[in-house]
């Protein structure tokens, strides 16, 4: 809340080479001298807010004249030649306009302003480059305070943002579950990129945190929004690891008018994070602790027990071989052996073996204070994140130091952050292994030692054939080994800013940010690890492995902003112009070695060598970008606002023929309620309509596509010489992907603030999508990247909130909020190469791939469309699945050419219902998230019931109970026959509606009144205690095994915070 108080209300920075001439004229027109009168020579004053905090940049004017002035950084002002008995009017964003009548002869005055009740986000919009009062801003942006986000999810700010903001979506990762070492895939207003082609492989997979590369996370998820932290580009990981107590606010910029200043980086939307800045006054110490308990959610698993599994295996023909009597006898003997195990009572519940309850703690200590001119802030945080898989976790140490110095017209500030994070990967391996392991295997032998290989060899048992399924090893065995598997990162950031208030209209800001981080990872698997159990024949040099990665990433950001604003009469002009530049460099070296037989030889140098196939690798990426922007907004009489923003961006990632690209946006807004014709009424008090349009760009792709790059062949030599060739045809004409964004928005206040409504409708047309274009192979190349595709997104966000009870006297507050977001995605243009991909997907050589619906991109369809063959279900007579061909006829044969769009992975509606109740110190806050209208291919159901590999893995209990057995059975699943006999390929039978309602967050809290005896004794002020429960319950139409590689977790947070 503090961050705007000591700044000029409209701290605008502006740039454009193109617009500068226009601006010049504008300046000349506005630089008019004003007349003066004489009565009191000098009136001095200071403006403060209701907390006694000084307000710089407040506008003080003499009523009835055109004379006005803005307060300086120290909140003071001087007015000359003030007529006696004048009325001074003071206005400041977020505060109610105050009028003071000067007493005769009064030459000094202190003006106190009260903050208006409106929400912060409605008052000022900070897009990271400049701030603007909401009244002078036409874009679609939404700000959430750090406190608000903390109340939703105190341990994961990104999750909190996705809960509260309907346009932000996090793709749920069914494999990685609640793995603390994976970054979420985050999108604002849907996808603007095809997840194919541009990088050569499928994109949008989750990135492990701690790789620390500034650019790579953007490249890996080309739909990731731009992250701006305190005015400089940052990474998703920084926000992920950040102490939530440091966050002052997060602003989500959605449409063109809000984001165009970022030019080529803006197409995916922008998330602007502002950290808290110290407040002047006595030293304040605040401390917050948050403890959380993670409990693995295994309720979605319904695996067979030992007896059922053995029976299912028998039915599936695992223990018989009708074609070979010799084998048949052997398999029967194996059955008997395993039956004996079952009968002896072995029935291991493997799922619980690698999981635990994770107790995590987060400490956060903040010290801030200072005088008017010098302020400081120091924050320390430590978090010890413990994952639900044993041994997995994430520790973060952070230190942040802020110092600022202000004099009359200058303000210098420096912010330094150092953080160290360490992510431990569980030695227990993938959770999926435990879901596979047979329950009739014993985890330990009679002496209590963990078993490595489950079954004795056939020769030991006197059986003639090898065991069905081969050698089974115990994944849990590895947990007892000395092995390393962790990643870490040390990062350092320094931001320096200089602000210069040139005069009451002009302001300049320069900043430089230096970021460096040193990521690394170590992974050591001794020879005793089960991964080598099957490879004893590989030879010593491949036995045991060690992998080490070291990296260094640096980014230097610089910016220079200039802002100008002027009010004359009913006209307000606000302009900002600026230049930003960025240079990044990322290096990393990976060394993999092998031949480490013993687990105490856990050093890289103890290895035997590179084995038969390993070699060191390194990467080095350099990018640079420059961007300059200009934004000008004109407001007339608080009624009409027009805004134009232009940007020229250049990046090293673009074709050498297209190094600089222009972007622009324009918007208009109309405060209907300020019109004369708008009669005061009891229904609508506030109504604002906004309309914007503009073009933004996206540069999340690799640099090599636009300039010829030679690749050295490092594996072969030609008579002692190395050779290099041009790997792919570089397209020097490659253009920026451009997204034309239109937004129509409205906000309304009804029933005297009892109901607040916000609505935004948007369309986003991305053109020049970069896709591969196939060419004649006689050119020497297969394809090259060109601007070939187009995608359209359209959708709306709607939110309604109501402070139902606001009883200050009895201290009862209750508010309700509901929001909903919807978007649709349509591909409007495609390159022929995508046709080839579709074709290849249809006729893939590997039939195994067809068990999952392969992506297919067609004009007129969405990117998340699910393509599968329509199914009429299981024929009760034969137990076979009945498919519908394209011509409508029925068949038992699955043919990929019959695939049709049968569902869409994107839900139609997504939103949240929130109730926030406060009574005295008590808080009860609940967020219910819902999803409606999307489909999902229930892959785990297919994999665990029909395409089960009973030879090697356990399966869902429905394998035995709900599959077709005899003619007449009306069931959902095909019959159980010998494995390999029938593969279930992508069919509409497994496309299910994915509707759910879940309790994303429930918070119960209590703030102790400061007048309590113990609170006073302990020198505390307003200690708060709160408990937050995340993902407590979920009602869904779809039942699927969630978290196949890492389980999902229920999260309980207990927090306590106080200020000394």
């Amino acid at each position, binding site marked *: 809340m503090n961050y705007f108080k000591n700044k000029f209300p409209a701290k605008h920075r502006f740039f454009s080479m193109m617009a*500068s001439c226009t601006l010049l004229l504008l300046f000349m027109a506005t630089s008019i001298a004003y007349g003066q009168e004489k009565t009191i020579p000098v009136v001095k004053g200071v403006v403060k807010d209701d907390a006694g905090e000084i307000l710089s940049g407040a506008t003080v004017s003499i009523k009835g004249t055109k004379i006005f002035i803005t307060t300086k950084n120290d909140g003071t002002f001087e007015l000359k030649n003030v007529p006696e008995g004048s009325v001074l009017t003071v206005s400041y964003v977020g505060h109610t306009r105050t009028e003071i009548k000067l007493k005769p002869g009064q030459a000094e005055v202190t003006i106190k302003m009260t903050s208006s009740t409106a929400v912060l986000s409605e008052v000022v919009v900070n897009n990271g480059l400049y701030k603007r009062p909401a009244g002078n801003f036409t874009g679609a942006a939404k700000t959430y305070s750090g406190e608000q986000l903390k109340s939703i999810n105190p341990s994961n700010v990104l999750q909190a943002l996705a809960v509260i903001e309907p346009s932000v979506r996090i793709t749920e990762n069914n494999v990685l579950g609640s793995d603390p070492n994976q970054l979420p895939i985050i999108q604002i207003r849907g996808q603007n990129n095809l997840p194919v082609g541009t990088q050569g492989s499928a994109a949008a997979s989750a990135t492990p945190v701690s790789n620390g590369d500034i650019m790579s996370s953007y490249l890996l998820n080309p739909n990731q929004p731009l992250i701006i932290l305190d005015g400089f580009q940052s990474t998703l990981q920084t926000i992920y690891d950040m102490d939530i107590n440091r966050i002052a606010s997060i602003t989500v910029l959605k449409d063109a008018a809000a984001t165009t200043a970022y030019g080529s980086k803006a197409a995916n939307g922008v998330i602007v994070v502002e950290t808290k800045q110290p407040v002047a006054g006595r030293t304040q110490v605040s401390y917050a602790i948050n403890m959380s308990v993670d409990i693995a959610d295994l309720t979605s698993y319904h695996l067979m027990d030992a007896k059922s599994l053995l029976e299912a295996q028998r039915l599936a023909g695992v223990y018989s071989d009708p074609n070979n009597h010799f084998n048949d006898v052997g398999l029967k003997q194996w059955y008997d052996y395993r039956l004996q195990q079952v009968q002896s009572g072995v029935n291991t519940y493997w799922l619980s073996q690698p999981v635990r309850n994770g107790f995590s703690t987060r400490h956060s200590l903040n010290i801030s204070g200072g005088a008017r001119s010098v302020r400081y802030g120091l924050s320390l945080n430590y978090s010890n994140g413990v994952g639900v898989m044993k041994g997995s976790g994430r520790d973060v140490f952070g230190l942040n130091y802020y110092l600022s110095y202000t004099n009359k017209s200058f303000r210098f500030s420096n912010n330094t952050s150092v953080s160290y994070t360490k992510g431990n990967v569980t030695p227990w391996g993938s959770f999926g292994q435990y879901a596979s392991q047979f329950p009739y295997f014993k985890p330990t032998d009679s002496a209590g030692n963990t078993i490595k290989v489950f079954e004795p060899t056939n020769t030991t048992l006197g059986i003639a054939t090898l065991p069905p399924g081969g050698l089974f090893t115990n994944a849990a065995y590895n947990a007892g080994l000395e092995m390393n598997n962790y990643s870490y990162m040390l990062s350092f950031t320094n931001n320096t800013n200089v602000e210069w208030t040139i*005069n009451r209209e002009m302001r300049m800001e320069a900043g*430089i940010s230096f970021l460096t981080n040193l990521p690394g990872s170590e992974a050591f698997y001794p020879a005793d690890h089960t991964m080598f159990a099957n490879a004893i024949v590989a030879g010593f040099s491949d036995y045991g492995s060690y992998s080490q990665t070291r990296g260094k990433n640096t980014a230097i950001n610089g910016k220079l902003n200039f802002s100008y604003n002027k009010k004359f009469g009913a006209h307000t002009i606000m302009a900002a112009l600026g230049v930003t530049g960025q240079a990044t460099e990322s290096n990393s070296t990976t060394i993999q070695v092998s031949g480490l037989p013993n687990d105490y030889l856990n050093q890289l140098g103890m290895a035997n060598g590179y084995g038969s196939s390993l070699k060191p690798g390194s990467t080095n990426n*350099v990018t640079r970008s420059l961007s300059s922007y200009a934004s000008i907004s004109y407001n007339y009489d608080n009624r009409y606002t027009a805004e134009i923003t232009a940007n020229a961006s250049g990046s090293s990632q673009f074709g050498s023929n297209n*190094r*600089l690209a222009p972007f622009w946006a324009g918007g208009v807004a109309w405060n209907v309620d300020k019109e004369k014709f708008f009669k005061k009424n009891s229904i609508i008090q506030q109504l604002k309509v906004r309309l914007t349009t503009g073009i933004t760009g996206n540069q999340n792709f690799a640099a090599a596509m636009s300039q010829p*790059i030679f690749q050295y062949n490092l594996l072969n030599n030609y008579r002692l*010489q190395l050779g290099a060739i041009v790997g792919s045809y570089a397209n020097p004409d490659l253009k920026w992907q451009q997204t034309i964004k239109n937004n129509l928005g409205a906000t309304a206040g009804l029933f005297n603030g009892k109901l607040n409504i916000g609505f935004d409708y948007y369309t986003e047309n991305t053109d020049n999508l970069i896709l591969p274009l196939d060419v004649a192979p*006689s*050119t020497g190349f297969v394809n090259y990247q060109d601007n070939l595709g187009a995608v359209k997104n359209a959708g709306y966000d709607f939110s309604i909130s109501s402070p139902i009870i606001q009883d200050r006297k009895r201290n009862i507050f209750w508010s309700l909020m509901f929001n909903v977001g919807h978007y649709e995605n349509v591909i409007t243009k495609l390159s022929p190469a995508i046709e080839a991909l579709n074709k290849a997907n249809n006729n893939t050589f590997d039939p195994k791939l067809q068990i999952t619906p392969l992506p297919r991109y067609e004009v007129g369809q969405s990117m998340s469309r699910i393509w599968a063959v329509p199914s009429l279900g299981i024929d009760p007579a034969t137990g076979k699945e009945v498919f519908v061909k394209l011509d409508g006829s029925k068949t038992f044969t699955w043919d990929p050419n019959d695939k049709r769009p049968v569902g869409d992975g994107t839900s139609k509606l997504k939103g949240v219902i929130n109730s926030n109740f406060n009574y005295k110190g008590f808080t009860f806050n609940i967020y219910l998230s819902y999803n409606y209208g999307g489909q999902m291919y229930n892959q785990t159901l297919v994999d665990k019931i029909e395409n089960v590999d009973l030879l090697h893995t356990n399966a869902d209990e429905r394998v035995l109970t709900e599959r077709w057995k005899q003619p007449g059975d009306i069931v959902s699943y095909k019959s159980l026959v010998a494995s390999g006999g029938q593969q279930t390929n992508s069919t509409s039978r497994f496309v299910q509606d994915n509707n759910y309602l879940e309790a994303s967050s429930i918070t119960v809290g209590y703030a102790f009144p400061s007048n309590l005896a113990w609170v006073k004794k302990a020198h505390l002020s307003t200690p708060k205690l709160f408990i937050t429960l995340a993902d407590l319950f979920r009602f869904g139409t779809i039942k699927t095994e969630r978290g196949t590689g890492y389980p999902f977790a229920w999260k309980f947070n207990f927090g306590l915070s106080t200020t000394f």
Partner: protein
Amino acid sequence: MEIQFWFINYFLKKIFMDHNKLLAIHGNCFPKLTLIALTAVIMLLAPGCKKFLDVPPKDQVPQSTLFKDEQGFKDALIGVYLGLDKPNNGASYGLYTTDLSMGMLSTMAYNYDNATAANAGVGGAFYNNVVAYTYLEGEVRKEIDGIWGGMYNNIANLNNILIQIESKKDVFHHDNFNRVKGEAIALRALFHFDLLRMFGKSPLTGSAEKAIPYVTQFTIRSTPFVTLQAGLDSCIVDLLAAKEILAATDTSAVLKGVDDVFTSYTQNHLNYWAVQALLARVYLYKGDLENADIYSKAVIGSNKFPLISSNVAAALNAIRDRTFSQELLFSVYSSNTSNYNSGLFDKASGGGTSLSMLAARRDLTYKTGSGNASDYRYISWFDNNQAAVSVPSKFFQDKNLPYELQGNVPVIRASEMYYIAAECANKKNDITAGAALLNKVRAARGLNALNAAGIATTDSLSTEIMREYQKEFIQEGQTFFYYKRLNKDLRQVTGTPVAIPADVYVFPIPDKEKEYNH
């Protein structure tokens, strides 16, 4: 970067400070001046932008960096030489090192009569389909598409070098400019010529028909198809140009390993003499016997690549020169060669069937008629890799083989020059001269001179020439092209038992080429 910003910052402040003083006196001129100054600074910044944004990716080498010096051009050329084995966008198996030599083309010339066996060679049905000439079968088709793609990728790389090299003549030392440029042009001709020989019709039947695109530009736009005749003419133009350029290099000796690694191993570069040999081959293919005669004799007359004179089989295995390396005008070096060999011909017991010329056929080839069991080729080129399993062994390499003998896959050898000259003489009805030329090779192979009575006619001399091709080029693939050039009845000359498709001499053009280049 930061310096730039600080500079601007400082500069702006300076201006503003000065004007602040002015402001005290003049009042309102300040905003205008500020803006002018700011605009001026930003204008100044603009030209710097482009330079700032031009950064090379560091873990790869951009062209602008590579071609800064001679080494870059050498490396780019070596890249293409490596592409003779494994080009980008290429086939599954080695290009000149397998498909165009010991693998596909030799199988098509019916060198391996057991290629019909299950899992022959690389395993799977690949060689079963090759030996049945089913070019449209999935895997064979893919391989043929890969040959096309790989050849043209090499050509594109050469064209790129040739475009870039012209403006960089001054970065070269000694005769290296001519070496790189000459070899690049010659390689371009080599690739196009082999593409013409595979994808064009036989010169006897389809000289005027469209064959392949002859690509001399580095561009993503496709080049139209040209006729076989025009394609061969373009090859000749390129080769003549290459010969001129390479003539300006040091051609005093054929080198092995010397100090300068780039000029070492002359025989692994498409050198001055190899270019002339190639000219003889192309002229012959075109039917221009006069020129074929001139260039084949020029190579023979240079005496740089003398025929062997003793039985290599007599040498110890560790130094056995099975490829008759002194005769090789140009051979591809590949460190993969021994792997290819063991994958195709030296398979371990139980690991599948090694491709082989069975005993009866071998005897028929080498011993009957003018042949004899004393033929060094018969003795040197077949070995038992397992007990009683005799396989072609031209590419067998002992681990201790001298380095210069390792990894060579012949592309063109001296004996072919004698055959070409003999064919030219024969065409002029000069049977005596023709026979004399053949006898030179026969003598070097441990055979008696041809019995004059047996080759009374040009036809009988032609038959002897064909027999020489059949014996000499086993595992080298040239025999297939010999049959094709003369449009021989493949079934008859090879004695394959399978029915051979009518268009066996023409490889199918890749579908993608037809789709995007018409």
